[in-house]
């Protein structure tokens, strides 16, 4: 296993990479929920974006065009959700579920139809991926104990999207708490009537929130397909969208706690590989499934109020209909 520092550095390194799509997705959900729209469809948007990104990156050999395609598809799905829920006051949970299922089916169907390789897309070339970015002097500092290791392994060498994800807290925090848009966004989620009487359009704000949600999910899905992997395969999101929702609830809809919740879930996942078959004094061999189940169980405990209270934005999930 090597010395503890190396172990620690490698674990955190893995955690950062695994948590990236989770962070992006949960922040996407944050924007939606803060505006009062429940979005179960994070999963579907990510999956759709993954497929679009993989396909376009393959065909155009460009990671950036893939990213654009992923974002476009994700935003499109978000707009369908907004149309059903905001304009037509449809049931938000049902709409999210519907989109998830549709995309889950559509991905393999289109993949097979276009590329003929079963339910996955062909692998893209290295040029079409997001390459690792090496920070200056990373090589030279690699041998410096502790600090050098952290710099060269942990901080340098990730691809662009990981850095974006890590920057989400200041980015989203800035957006939500320091801009006019953010103020109105939060207001719409707490008291849409107050916003309406101030002369601001409630549905306008919600549509805009869903666009942001779509963009972030698009980046997350793109990452999965062409940064973390090199192809799209069916169900590749594997419940990550729901986990992102759980992290959001765990983080009480605030940027920093949500990031930490994502880290926690990702850490647990990274731990899973390491702890397989390892004998822990006092506990014995921890079944890998117990670790796998941890994020889900933690979320249930949180919702049950055993790990603090989770108070969503007051107007979350309630379609806004002007009273008579």
């Amino acid at each position, binding site marked *: 296993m090597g010395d503890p520092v190396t172990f620690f550095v490698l674990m955190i390194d893995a955690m950062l990479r695994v948590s990236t799509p989770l962070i992006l997705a949960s922040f996407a959900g944050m924007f939606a929920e803060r505006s009062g729209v429940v979005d*179960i469809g994070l999963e579907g948007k990510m999956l759709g974006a993954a497929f679009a990104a993989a396909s376009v990156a393959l065909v155009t050999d460009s990671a950036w065009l893939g990213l654009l395609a992923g974002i476009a598809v994700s935003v499109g799905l978000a707009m*369908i959700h907004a149309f*059903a*829920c905001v304009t*037509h*006051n*449809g*049931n938000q*949970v*049902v*709409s999210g*579920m*519907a*989109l*998830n*299922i*549709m*995309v*889950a*089916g*559509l*991905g*393999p*169907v*289109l993949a*097979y*139809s276009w590329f003929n390789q079963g*339910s996955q897309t062909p692998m893209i070339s290295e040029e079409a991926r997001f390459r690792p970015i090496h920070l200056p002097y990373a090589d030279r500092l690699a041998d410096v104990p502790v600090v050098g290791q952290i710099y060269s392994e942990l901080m340098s060498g990730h691809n662009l999207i990981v850095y974006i994800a890590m920057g989400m807290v200041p980015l989203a925090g800035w957006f939500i708490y320091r801009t006019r848009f953010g103020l109105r966004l939060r207001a719409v989620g707490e008291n849409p009537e107050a916003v309406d009487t101030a002369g601001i359009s409630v549905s306008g704000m919600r549509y805009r929130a869903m666009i942001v949600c779509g963009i972030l999910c698009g980046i997350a899905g793109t990452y999965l397909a062409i940064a973390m992997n090199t192809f799209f395969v*069916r169900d590749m999101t594997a*419940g990550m969208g*729901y986990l992102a*929702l*759980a992290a959001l*609830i765990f983080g009480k809809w605030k940027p920093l706690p949500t990031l930490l919740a994502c880290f926690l879930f990702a850490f647990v996942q990274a731990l899973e590989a390491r702890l397989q078959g390892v004998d822990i004094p006092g506990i014995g061999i921890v*079944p890998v*499934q*117990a670790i*796998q*189940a941890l994020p*889900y*169980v933690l*979320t*249930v405990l949180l*919702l*049950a*109020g055993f790990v603090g209270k989770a108070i969503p934005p007051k107007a979350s999930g309630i379609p806004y209909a002007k009273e008579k």
Partner: protein
Amino acid sequence: MKGLGAPVEAPKWVTHALVPAINLALALLVSGLLILALGEDPFAAISILAHGAFGYPEAIGYTLYYTTNFIFTGLAVAMAFHCYLFNIGGEGQAYLGGLGAGLVALAFGHWPAPIVLILAILAAALFGGIWGFIPGWLQAKRGSHIVITTIMFNFIAAILMTYLMVEIFIEPGQQAAESRDFESGAFMPRAHDILAAVGIDAGHSNLNLSFILALMCCVGFWFFVWRTRWGYEIRTVGQNETAGVYGGILPSRAIIVAMCISGGLAGLVGVNEILGAHHRLLLEFTSGYGFVGIAVALMGRNHPIGIFFAALLFGALYQGGNDLAFDMPSIKREMVVVIQGLVILFSGALENMFRPRIEALFTRRARFAPAAE
């Protein structure tokens, strides 16, 4: 002002048959366009699908076998809907139900068949019911949003089952995480065997006695929801909780009962799959049936008759879809999943877009008819 009590609303058949039919038509229309975009002929696709679903005895058998699962999960979702709860946890509840049935089969498979089967059915319902009870209790007593908890429980169930299968039940020397085969006493009788005994050749399919069980559940469902005091209370709390409290009903009790029954119904999928089809415990036998249940319940408007037909439709889609994927290789099986999603979208989320307008067409006419006394 309404007349002297003359009903000014759309006739029942509009709401319960026409609107679902139109929703389905829209979903199929979009699917048809998709098929066209994939370079195939939608009408040819439909005919292959129809033939694949009903064209020969084996097909019918498999169609009804799938239908059985969808009846169970559709009823499960519908029961929860009657209390205005969204049970997304059908997958997990079905999984646990299979576990329960499998445990009884493994432990008591050597007992006489009727006893084992009845015990196994009860175990499936019990295990599924427990898996529904926990989120229901959390919602009723702690206010935990049932949508999130049931989704979480789906994952927990899958992980739990993987652990159990890999660590405990796996048949030694096997690669796949499956248990040993059950004794024949724990087999749900297959339809083709029963029919063969009466001289009918029905081909070889997975269709088994669980289908009859599903039909019995439909009947029982109807009586429970509309002809018992517990069903009355569940419906009242679902429609108007304030009126429920006024009427001396405990909302928390209604929620918990609804979720237990809901989970139990989903658990019966385990009977069809484990005892009826596979005859051993294995992983991933729920393969999306829980989610289809949502589509079935929405299309069937939470009524057993509608659910039966919606389940039949999806059964046909699944079975016909298999054949279709075979004959038209460019359309994968997953096309059915797309149709499923579209049905949920149109029947559920976009309901408010169409239903009021369609119903308005009928009420406007009624208003001009002379008011009855």
